[in-house]
């Protein structure tokens, strides 16, 4: 067998105990056909084999992000100014000003997460005065973590928020002494107000969404990501909002492998969504680049904990167990893997009660299922997850919010 591609002279990290420190790999038809030292692997070389000298560099397996919102992120990537890693607010505001200057009407400038004021030397967020001065005409929408969005007056005009606009439940529109919106909108604690306001902005055309998704994948490739599992997302409708990624797969233009979970968009009618998908979507349909992966991370809205640090932790409603049971029973009966957003140990205890009850009647029997986040899970519940064959997907959100919390607790402790 002759290789399409050989990489040699590398420091290749493999988890395989038999080949912990190899230097070369041979690849054919998208698979490794040999992993070993330079001389073994070179035996797979033919005249047409492409051969690359790795120059003794470190090589690791492709990175796989098991919880990301790539599909939605890709549709918006080219629209968003990113402040990730920008070291000062002065830099961030200069970037904002430059982007405002080149953004045509009626487009907005939006900064949607990925930053916190604690990365800035000034250790503060921009003020409403600052963004109004920078952008008198162009709508500016800046999302801060889960808790607030800072909008300039042009953005308030674009979304039509006035003195008479009521805030949705769990959300707040900050008002001045005349009752006019100031531009600050706050999750108290329901983040719906933030995302529904963002959703009022213009989107990219389909062609530009294709382009945007390709550039987002390239950006992920820049950090070594080769696979992801997409956790769905609010306002991310199946199959409409999956057309772009589907077309890219058909054209063989995906550069990241995507497994996707289906996320219900219908509060109180979640069961109908899943019933419909079980009828119309074949489990694991697709191919090795783009593949269905079951249900979640939203299974029923009553099981979703909308907390942020400004608010006490609300208990999940009493009807949660009954609603969750109905949906999970359906999924288990149809052998659909599922994932569930679960932050607090208190919620996890209740979710596990539901799963164990179902398991008594319809054994999970190796059906893979996932808790997402699970940041406060205790040992006992980890044992229960293990007994039911579940897995836990962890993320690094605290790396972005830690100081916020610390400032709050530090002050309290003092």
């Amino acid at each position, binding site marked *: 067998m002759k290789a399409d591609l050989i990489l040699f002279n590398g420091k290749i990290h493999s988890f*395989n105990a038999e080949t912990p420190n*190899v230097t070369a*790999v041979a690849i054919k*038809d998208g*698979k*490794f056909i040999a992993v070993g030292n330079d001389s073994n692997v070179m035996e797979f070389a033919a005249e047409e084999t492409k051969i690359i000298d790795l120059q003794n*560099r*470190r*090589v690791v*397996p*492709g*990175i*796989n*992000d*098991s*919880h*990301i919102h790539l599909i*939605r992120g890709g549709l918006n990537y080219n*629209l968003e100014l*990113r402040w*990730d*890693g920008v*070291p*000062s607010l002065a830099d961030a505001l200069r*970037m904002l000003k*430059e982007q405002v200057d080149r953004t045509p009407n009626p487009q907005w400038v939006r900064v*949607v997460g990925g930053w916190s004021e604690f990365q800035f030397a000034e250790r503060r967020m921009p003020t409403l005065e600052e963004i109004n001065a920078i952008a008198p005409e162009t709508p500016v929408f800046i999302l801060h*973590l*889960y808790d607030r969005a800072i909008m300039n007056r042009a953005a308030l005009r674009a979304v039509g928020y006035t003195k008479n606009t009521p805030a949705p439940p769990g959300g707040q529109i900050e008002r001045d002494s005349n009752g006019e919106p100031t531009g600050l909108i706050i999750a108290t*604690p329901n983040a719906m107000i*933030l995302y529904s306001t963002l959703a009022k902005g213009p989107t990219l055309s389909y*062609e*530009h969404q294709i382009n*945007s998704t390709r*550039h987002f994948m390239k950006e992920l490739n*820049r950090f*070594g990501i*080769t*696979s992801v*599992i997409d956790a769905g997302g*609010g306002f991310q409708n199946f199959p409409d909002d999956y057309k772009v990624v589907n077309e890219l797969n058909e054209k063989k233009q995906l*550069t990241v*492998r995507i*497994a996707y979970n289906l996320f219900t968009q219908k509060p109180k009618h979640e069961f109908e969504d899943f019933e419909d998908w079980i009828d119309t979507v074949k489990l694991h349909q697709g191919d*090795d680049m783009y593949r269905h992966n079951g249900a979640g991370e939203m299974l029923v809205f009553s099981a979703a*904990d909308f*907390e*942020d*640090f400004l608010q006490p932790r609300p208990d999940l409603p009493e009807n949660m167990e009954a609603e969750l049971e109905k949906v999970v029973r359906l999924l288990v009966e149809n052998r659909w893997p599922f994932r569930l*957003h679960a932050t607090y140990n208190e919620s996890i205890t209740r979710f596990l009660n539901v799963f164990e009850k179902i398991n008594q009647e319809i054994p999970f029997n190796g059906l893979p299922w996932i808790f997402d*986040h699970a*940041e406060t899970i205790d040992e006992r519940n980890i044992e229960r997850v293990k007994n039911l064959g*579940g*897995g836990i*997907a962890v*993320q*690094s959100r605290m790396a972005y919010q830690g100081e*916020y919390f610390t400032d709050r*607790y*530090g002050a309290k402790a003092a």
Partner: protein
Amino acid sequence: MEVPVGGGSDATRVSSYNPWVSMYWMTVGKTVGGLQLYNESRLSRETALELYTRGSAWFSQEQAKKGDIRTGMFADLVVLDRDYFNIDDEDIKKIEADLTIVDGKIVYANGDFSSFSPPHIPILPDWSPTNIYNGYPTRSNLQSAIEKNSKATAKPSLTSQIHSCSGSCDVHAHSHDVARMSNVPVNNYNAFWGALGCSCFAF
């Protein structure tokens, strides 16, 4: 305990998608602002990498197909611009790929390997912020942002300031005050995480 665990970011609306920032967090226990939040539960670099490769593969039931460099598995790998296993903690979050291969094809190449790069795709629309800043601000897009910016706006470059600020410098030292002066109840995980919470699914 052998519960499967997968690494991830929950990007893009709160966290960044940069996996090396996550691995820095898992192995060093510091926030992006430099605050030390935990110490005892730091993972080894190998374990953090394993969560983000082999660990994650379980979550789509593809653990036999991907997550390792092994005969018969998908030819997905990354050549790093620096050696993850032999660099200082602070350098972990600066890691980028110099060569990324998916399904046996080169999808990204930079630095010493840039001659293997796939053709550039123009960024649309032309006013897109991506056209100037092109993603997470680190080494590889810095220079081009500086050049594009000076062409586009004929103003002093903001990225030159970003550049002078990457690495250990006065800017990052500021954050240590917060760590010194605070009393994080890291043993009370309930309060610790619970105070922050999450609603990522919401969008």
